């Protein structure tokens, strides 16, 4: 009987153009979304490559100049002297700290179009180093990207709802439901048959399309990286459980025996609630409960601190020597110009003074993230966005890790150059200066973070299915 239902449903599906139109739209969206993600990732990679090339050339030239000057074959003005540790560490020999996109980055643009993916590190204040941003039309940042994540979060549920919203109601409206159930078959078997067929169609479609988009993204599955394969499995699992949730929801809603149009309206409202209203409401709640102050407070704080520091410049230098006795010059003559020393001391003082302001920002942001984390349990769409961002490495988490590592690297950078400034040491090579290499989180650690979400969505989907199944047994076949 089950097989007969399947066969019949398949014929019905073939005859109905609507599912195929939906499928075509989904396929086109997936293709376009993937290409868009790939284009953005390539753009980032290209920019990173350009920055690295510029750095390589500049540093090589720097070392060549140093050799020429040492050999007495070249003369330069003191301000442009490549051997001066202060100007080298601050301007001439700076390096880039780069967050390279992961292989799965084309999956979702995520926050990567908003948050900087490379910084130019110098001995100047950290705030100055971290202020870089990529150029993008702000209207585009506002409307968001048409990437694969957009398709998966918004379009894909609509596709499922479109397949399943009139599961039984259509037959009831055509008057064929009573006829079908006059045969030795239960409502549940009938629904199971209908759902199974849709699931099959849908799985075949997804596998084909996923293959298509992987090929379009140029992702090589035979690559040895296990992290890539783990990521793909996690993404597949996320897509599956997210789909399950929506399918279960559709079945549960149809189980109440309302007309197709009512089902469609209710499901549309649910979709709106989960994908639009709840995420933005979460955002609103987070912003209202824990408003992050305007950065203007920080700018002004820095200004006040630097005014104070500047008036006390020489005192600060003396104090700096007290704090860092190892840097104190054995003879004042060996120290470089007083000006750069005072600048370093004042910068350190400014940083100390604005730390409380920075801490406020950090605290509010952390609180906001906690609120949003709470909302992910209310909105599967928000949860999906977080999981995809984690898997693709374009979410907030990986970026924060990056910023933390950059902050540490900034300290290392200073630790390399500042003693040389204080000691009045002439640089011989700048290619020995520290280099930044981003240390990614291990794939299992990422999975650990994704797993609760996956399990939650699975349980939610199953729970709704069970409730829907119960409701089905009371399905009003007529009337």
């Amino acid at each position, binding site marked *: 009987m089950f097989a007969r239902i399947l066969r019949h449903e398949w014929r019905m599906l073939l005859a109905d153009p609507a599912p195929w139109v939906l499928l075509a739209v989904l396929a086109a969206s997936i293709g376009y979304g993937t290409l*868009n993600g790939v284009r953005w990732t390539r*753009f980032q990679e*290209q920019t990173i490559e350009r920055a690295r090339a510029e750095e390589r050339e500049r540093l090589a030239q720097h070392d060549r100049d140093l050799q020429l000057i040492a050999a007495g074959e070249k003369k330069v003005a003191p301000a442009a002297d490549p051997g001066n540790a202060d100007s080298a560490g601050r301007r001439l020999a700076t390096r880039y700290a780069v967050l390279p996109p992961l292989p799965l980055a084309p999956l979702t643009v995520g926050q990567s179009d908003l948050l900087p993916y490379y910084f130019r590190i110098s001995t100047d204040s950290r705030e100055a180093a971290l202020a870089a941003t990529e150029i993008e039309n*702000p*209207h585009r940042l506002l409307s968001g990207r048409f990437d694969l994540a*957009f398709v998966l979060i918004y379009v894909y549920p609509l596709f499922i709802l479109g397949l399943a919203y009139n599961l039984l109601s259509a037959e009831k409206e055509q008057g064929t439901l009573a006829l079908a159930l006059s045969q030795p078959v239960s409502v549940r078997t009938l629904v199971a048959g209908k759902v199974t067929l849709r699931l099959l169609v849908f799985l075949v479609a997804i596998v084909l399309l996923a293959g298509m988009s992987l090929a379009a993204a140029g992702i090589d599955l035979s690559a040895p990286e296990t992290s890539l394969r783990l990521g793909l499995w996690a993404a597949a699992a996320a897509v599956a459980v997210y789909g399950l949730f929506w399918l279960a929801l559709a079945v549960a809603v149809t189980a109440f025996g309302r007309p197709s*149009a009512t089902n469609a309206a209710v499901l549309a409202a649910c979709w709106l609630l989960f994908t639009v209203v709840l995420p933005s409401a979460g955002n*609103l709640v987070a912003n209202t409960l824990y408003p992050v102050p305007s950065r203007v407070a920080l700018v002004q704080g820095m200004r*006040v601190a630097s005014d104070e520091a500047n008036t006390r410049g020489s005192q600060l230098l003396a104090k700096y020597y007290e704090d860092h006795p190892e840097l104190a010059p054995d003879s004042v003559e060996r120290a470089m110009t007083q000006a750069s020393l005072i600048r370093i001391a004042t910068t350190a003082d400014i940083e100390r003074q604005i730390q409380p302001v920075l801490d406020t920002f950090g605290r509010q942001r952390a609180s906001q*993230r906690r609120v949003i984390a709470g909302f992910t349990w209310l909105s599967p769409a928000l949860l999906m966005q977080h999981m995809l961002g984690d898997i693709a490495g374009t979410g907030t988490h990986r970026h924060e890790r990056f910023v933390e590592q950059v902050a540490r690297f900034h300290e290392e950078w200073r630790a390399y150059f500042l003693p040389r400034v204080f000691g009045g040491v002439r640089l011989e090579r700048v290619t020995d200066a520290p280099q930044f290499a981003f240390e990614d989180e291990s794939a299992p650690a990422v999975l650990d973070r994704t797993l609760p979400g996956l399990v939650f969505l699975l349980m939610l989907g199953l729970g709704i299915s069970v409730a829907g199944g119960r409701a089905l047994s009371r399905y009003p076949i007529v009337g």
Partner: protein
Amino acid sequence: MPTSNGSIWNTCTTEDDIMIGRIARKEFLETVRDGRFRVLAAVVLVLGLGSMAAGWSRYQDVQGQHQEAQAATRTQWLNQPAKNPHSAAHYGMYAFKPKSRLSIVDPGVDPYVGVSAWLEAHRQNEFAYRPAQDGTAAQRFGELTAAEGMLVLLPLVIVLLSFGAFAAEREQGTLRQLMSLGVARKDLLMGKALGVAGVVAAIVVPVTAAGVLALALTSEFGSPLRDASRAGLLVVIYLAYHGIITAVALGVSARARSSRLALVMLLALWFGNTLMAPRLAADLAAAWHPTPSAFEFQTALERELADQTEVRRSLETRRQEIVKAHNVATVEEAPVNFSGVSLQEGEEHANQVFDRHYGRLFDAYEAQQRVVTLAGAAAPLLPVRGLSTSLAGTDIAHHRDFVRSAEEYRRRIQRVMNDDIYRNSRAGVVYTAGPELWAKVPEFRYDPPGLGTVLAQQGWSLVVLAAWLVAACVFASRGVARLAAE
């Protein structure tokens, strides 16, 4: 029984008016008595009011902080100790972007543009610190604002209200009954439209009232009257958009074979218009008018700034002019300081470079926005978004205008400082200026562009929107003219 009645917009009689009123009343009551719609309307209403309140409190916070900071930066400038004017120019001032009052309704791109720039010598610094960078990933789902409620949620409510207007009546057989009563089709259409409008008004009127209240409560930051015309027009634009959505929904309902199909079609249209179109249009615009990467932009800028040939040439001319004017052998003997000239020439050269590069960038953004507006021919939300952010003073054009104003101010500081060096100092002599000079730089004031400028910028949006309104009404009336009872 399809009848083609080409001109349904005949002169209205009083009886027609009564009929329209009756239909509207019936539609309105039916909706209001439906518990589901009461819930839906209540949710949209609460979201609208809540977002308005949140927008207001955010505005108060941020605007307060920015005004305070702007005053503080001025005080710091005035309280500088005696120093060389060029040191003062390096010390500079900060420009903090004021928040437009109507950002309470539509914050637009505010989260995605920087809030402050350092106005220092030699450099036009970019506006740094985009508020969105301090936000969470959830904000990429869109912020819950009054504009979002009016442009995204309410249209969906309208769709749910009106998809069955004709299709469901046909299914229930009541359409035949209505027609047998001799109800004119245009009356039917008008009645249905007014019924929807009544429900929409039940949501829009309180939200608008809340908006007016919110604006009025911000009066400590200048007169709210100045924004009244913008706010009024904003409401008109939103209502026009709701009119378009209602007309399209009724038109589809009249044509669709079943109410189910009408709903599915309208949901698809809503989705395409609201979520697909803005993204696709932005992609199209970016492909058409690409912007450079920040890295390329910076590299090109630095390269041109470093090229000093032009500066050297013009300095040589100025040197000769001064020598001739003062009738001296060398410029050092003249009763002026030539370094004032050379500093200012350096500024002028850099200004040209900045104007060229930033000008190109902003031109590209504006060209992109034009593409988006014209893509509005396919999706009416696009011109409406443009108009909404523009009237709220939160679009890229307003940001550009503020950036321009801040940059003009920065140049003014440089001119005053360099002019003082030129006139009052002598080469090789230590020179310091004091508070009188700092006070010569007037306070920074910014006046946002008037309504006329906005309308001129958004001319195409208005045209596209008007075209949509006409087309949607024609679509609805044609659909109803061909209405079949079964």
